[in-house]
């Protein structure tokens, strides 16, 4: 783990976070063209939790995720062009067009896969950690999940198993208060805290502001290092907020499940803007440097979209191939 108060590290963290923001914004801009013909779940607003957590990992570590996985894929080092092409359904996509936005994968980068059945990748991640442990490898697994996913039976079963086996895994919960349009109070008792449940299983757990990039990075690093050192699993709950609609590219504060005021209060806590202020205040970056980076990243995103658009469609013979592995 690189030193935290190293200005390069700050800049790297910032870049990872900003990259997610910019890529997601590009997707949002182009989605209305109706060429990305699959559901997308954008994580704009939640980038600090995603970038900060993944920055704590080594390349050889593994990440798994659910339906809202673009940020995790990118932060773990997944190939951007292959992701865009996948969302566009192209042969050049990371899953050859078979998966789409909800099924990203980049084995080389250690992004083992995402799947949108809520809760399902949690035990799969535990299994990856189990294998790592059985083979005495030096790898940590991080699995991303939402507050909704903590209501699935398989989540608890996985936490119990991870505790039992002392697995090298970090359960990373992005708590954005909603499961689709369902608020907490129709799903969990008022004083319910997921960290208490993890602790009751003997799993170390922390809750923190998910929009504070440095804090996320610090806490995640501790958990990852602990897991790598054989100290077992942790559950980290980062409080954050999804800006856009659950699925799709628009805003949906008008449809009635949450208020515009709530959204605006969270927008004020924009993790990207906050970190930019911090970098400037601490003299770690200038506005000019940040603008340059934003431009670069925007260009990279648009290039990826162009790459995706011009890529070939999958050959028809792939339709019925790859059903079974040889």
């Amino acid at each position, binding site marked *: 783990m690189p030193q935290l108060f190293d200005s390069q590290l700050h800049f790297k963290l910032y870049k990872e976070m900003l990259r997610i923001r910019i890529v997601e914004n590009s997707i949002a801009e182009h989605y209305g063209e109706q060429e990305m013909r699959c559901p997308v779940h954008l994580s704009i607003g939640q980038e600090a939790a995603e970038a900060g957590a993944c920055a704590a990992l080594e390349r050889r570590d593994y990440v798994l995720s659910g339906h809202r996985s673009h940020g995790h894929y990118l932060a773990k080092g997944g190939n951007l062009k292959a992701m865009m092409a996948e969302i566009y359904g*192209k042969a050049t996509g990371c*899953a050859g067009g078979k998966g789409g936005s909800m099924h990203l994968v980049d084995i080389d980068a250690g992004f083992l896969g995402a799947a949108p059945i809520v809760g399902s990748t949690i035990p799969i991640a535990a299994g990856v950690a189990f294998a790592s442990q059985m083979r005495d490898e030096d790898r940590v697994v991080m699995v991303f999940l939402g507050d909704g996913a903590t209501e699935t039976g398989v989540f608890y079963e996985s936490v119990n198993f991870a505790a039992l086996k002392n697995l090298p895994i970090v359960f990373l919960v992005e708590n954005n208060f909603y499961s689709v349009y369902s608020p907490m109070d129709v799903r969990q008792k008022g004083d319910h805290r997921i960290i208490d449940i993890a602790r009751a299983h003997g799993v170390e757990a922390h809750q923190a502001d998910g929009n504070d990039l440095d804090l996320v990075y610090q806490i995640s690093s501790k958990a990852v290092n602990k897991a790598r050192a054989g100290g077992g699993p942790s559950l980290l709950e980062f409080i954050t907020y999804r800006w856009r609609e659950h699925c799709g590219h628009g805003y949906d504060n008008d449809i009635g499940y949450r208020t515009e005021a709530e959204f605006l209060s969270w927008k004020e806590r924009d993790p990207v803007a906050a970190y930019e202020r911090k970098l400037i205040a601490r003299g770690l970056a200038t506005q000019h440097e940040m603008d340059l980076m934003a431009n670069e990243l925007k260009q990279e995103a648009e290039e990826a979209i162009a790459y995706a658009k011009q890529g070939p469609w999958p050959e028809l013979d792939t339709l019925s191939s790859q059903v079974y592995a040889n």
Partner: protein
Amino acid sequence: MNRQLKFFEAIREATDQAMERDPAVYIVGLGVPDPKGIFGTTLGLQEKYGTTRVQDMPLSENAMTGVALGSALVGMRPIITHQRVDFALVAMEQMVNQAAKWHYMFGGKAKVPMVVRMIIGRGWGQGPQHSQSLQAWFAHIPGLKVVMPTTAHDAKGLLAAAIEDNNPVVFIEHRWLHNISDEVPEEYYTVPLGSARVMREGNDVTIVGTSYMALEAVRAAERLRADDVSAEVIDLRTIRPWDVETVLGSVRKTGRLVVTDTASAAFGVSAEIVATVLECEFASMKTAPVRIALPDHPCPTSPALSNHYYPRADHIVRGVQRMMGIEPTTDMPAMTPHQKLDVPDPSFKGPF
């Protein structure tokens, strides 16, 4: 009266009327009271019936299926909804070991009047985990009933019948039917479970279809007139128990059978229909039966692939032509992704 209603509105109306008639009926499911209201099918119900009878729930489909079952044991009549069949896979234990068996295994002492609504996703990149069609699974389980309406009229009447039924009924809605309209009486009525609907009469071939594929079958029957083929189209409507008599009667007349289903052919509902017909009416058959259903692999996400995954009227027409030794009159239209075959009609926009 000729009132036209969309399928999703018919579902809502049946639920509304059932709740009005019987205070034991309640509805629970992820997003039931949310602003989208399960594709519009539950909109306005919470306002009308309150937060007890119209409920959201935790993301715990297995337990909540058990909860519905438990409440049914003591006299409630729950409807539980799943926005995709695929999500209900976590609830198979409660559905199959429990709900399907409590009446039988307790010697008739228990009964489980509950409806489990499930939606089959299709198109706009629903992909491998949001588009499965598992009616064959439920139909294989004694103790369950399985309903798949095709028209708005039947959606209303079959849902009402399912709610009235004293057994667990799996009610499967195809996403591409939700916006289809037809004439739907305003008053409460039921369509009996277990009866098929003859959608079109004919003499040369019997085409049995389920759900959305029954519509494709009607389209195929229209196209087949160009070949002078008179096709009888039967919408199965209920998969378990299915209307064996109507199908056998038709086959006795036509001597030819095509079965088209929204799921994989292999080990699917279409296999059961074919097997039963051949067991019972072997002597009436003039040709080998044909199944037109999904190929034997998962659904890909890219429209360039998924457009070729789903069979359509053309495939049914081809099947009949082959069966009857007719040279194809029409070329199967070449398909490209630009045809946007991943949406049912222009009113349907992604992502959902």
